């Protein structure tokens, strides 16, 4: 069953159509990648999923529920969490607080939230620590987010998304700006999450995608030009022309 479905979603900024009639289905439990050159509209598509932007036309359905135009803080409560392409953390807060805030948001009740001491929520703290453990940052829980390296901030970025215990995890170029070593580690991390979450992964580096994805969709100038298994996509001539500029990579 499709956990996320879009029907003819279009987003235009004035004369520029960033996303053009995209229809997409993400199967529950799968890892679905969206690839395409820079500027293809991948991040805009994420912003539409999460309510940062409202589509010009079309529908977005999450788990049988129409979420088109729902504001981002409500979308988060439905169980869609995202990481950002540009590192987007809370710099002056500790790593633990960074994930704690995300974990608390998904708690069903707001009871005592302005009065009870924050350390009296053991289950939230536990989930926050688990998210840090998942990305390997548990030893730095008390450091400030602005004091850790860029690579670690990328991991934190992911931990914030995980702490929300999402039903759908949207990862926007988790390996952006990482060294080859760090990229390897990030790929291993994402592979470890596969099966535990339904994941939509944006990437423009082919090699990262091919090993981990169940399905791959290719975006070019705002439209989907192909969809299939990684092997099918690699064979697809349109994709090679549009995305790889005619160069064959094996």
């Amino acid at each position, binding site marked *: 069953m499709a956990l996320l479905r879009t029907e003819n979603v279009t987003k235009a900024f004035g004369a520029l159509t960033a996303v053009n009639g995209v229809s997409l289905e993400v199967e529950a439990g799968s890892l679905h990648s969206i690839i395409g050159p820079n500027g293809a509209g991948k991040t805009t598509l994420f912003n539409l999923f*999460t309510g*940062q932007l409202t589509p010009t036309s079309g529908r977005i359905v999450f788990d049988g529920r129409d979420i088109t135009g729902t*504001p*981002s*803080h409500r979308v*988060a*409560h439905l169980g869609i*969490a*995202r990481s*950002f392409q540009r590192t*987007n*953390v*809370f*710099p*002056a*807060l500790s790593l633990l*607080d960074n994930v*704690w*805030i*995300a974990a*608390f*948001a*998904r708690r069903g009740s707001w009871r*005592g*939230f*302005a*009065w*009870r*001491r*924050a350390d009296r*929520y053991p289950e939230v703290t536990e989930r926050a620590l688990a998210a840090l453990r998942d990305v390997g940052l548990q030893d730095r829980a008390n450091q400030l987010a602005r004091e850790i390296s860029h690579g670690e901030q990328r991991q934190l970025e992911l931990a*914030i998304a995980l702490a*929300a215990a999402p039903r759908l995890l949207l990862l926007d170029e988790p390996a952006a700006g990482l060294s080859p070593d760090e990229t390897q580690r990030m790929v291993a991390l994402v592979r470890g999450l596969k099966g535990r979450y339904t994941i939509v992964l944006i990437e423009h580096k082919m090699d990262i995608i091919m090993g981990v994805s169940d399905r791959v969709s290719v975006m070019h100038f705002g439209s989907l030009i192909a969809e299939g298994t990684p092997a099918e996509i690699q064979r697809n001539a349109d994709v090679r022309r549009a995305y790889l500029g005619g160069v064959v990579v094996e």
Partner: protein
Amino acid sequence: MSRAWLAVFAAVILLPLAVRHALASEIWIFAIFGLGLNLLLGYTGLLSFGQSTFFGSAGYVSGYLLKHYGINVFAALGIGVLVGAVSAALVGYLCVQRSGLYFIMLTFALNQMFYFIAYQWTTVTGGEDGMPGIGRPVLLGVDFRQPLAYYIFVALLFLVSLWVMKRIVESPLGKILQAIRENEVRAQAVGYDGARLKLLAFVIGGAFSGLAGVLYAMLFGIVPLEAIGFVFSGNVVFATLIGGSGSLYGPIIGSFVFIWLSESVSVVWARWPLLLGVAFVIVVIFFRGGCVEAWARFWSWRERRRMATRLAS
């Protein structure tokens, strides 16, 4: 109990021995006002230049009821807190939709609006002359006209306010407001309604301002027009920044420095605000965290020097 609380208790007990009771009361009242602002300025990252709106409104409403109807002191305080919170909800609702400079200018402009209402509505507020004749009624046999009795009352309310604010900033709300300050877009993406939570911070800050406003009116027996003016709004921002907006205790230190300076130096030198200006420039350039940061830096510097001399010998 922490060292900070011990220091606060010591200050509460020692202050009336060192300065006039009225001045000591004013320091704690201004500290309550600062606590409310700092939830916005230090924790949520919102520079409100209109806090006197809530301070003054509460002073006028409760002052009016005290003067004409002789209501109970606690009723006056409760109404003041309510007026502070409601006026802050009105102003906040309009302001939190905007950010940055527009936010600051809106708080300022709305403050001016309230000021001119108070200025024009002379039958109630007394306009430029202020609203005099506010008494401090007897409560449970205690005569609050006694400066020391009133000081103790104010000091107790200050301690309660500090405790309440401490609970708020140590609660999840405190963390969430800091997250909004740090990165509102991410806080939204994680599931928090930024505008609504900022409004909540406004209302809480307004309630503290309202409490301070009523206590101020009862202290001096008058609500001067300045109590709702922009200079007053500026003063509390000033005091909080000098004390240190990054810390719960910063505004208390700031209030102490500000009120004490304005009282003692203004007698000697009429141009005393010049000194404040210099202090402000020093804070902005060297100690962004105010007195609290200066103090912390002094200690770490001393510690390092001690280590260095120990290593040398």
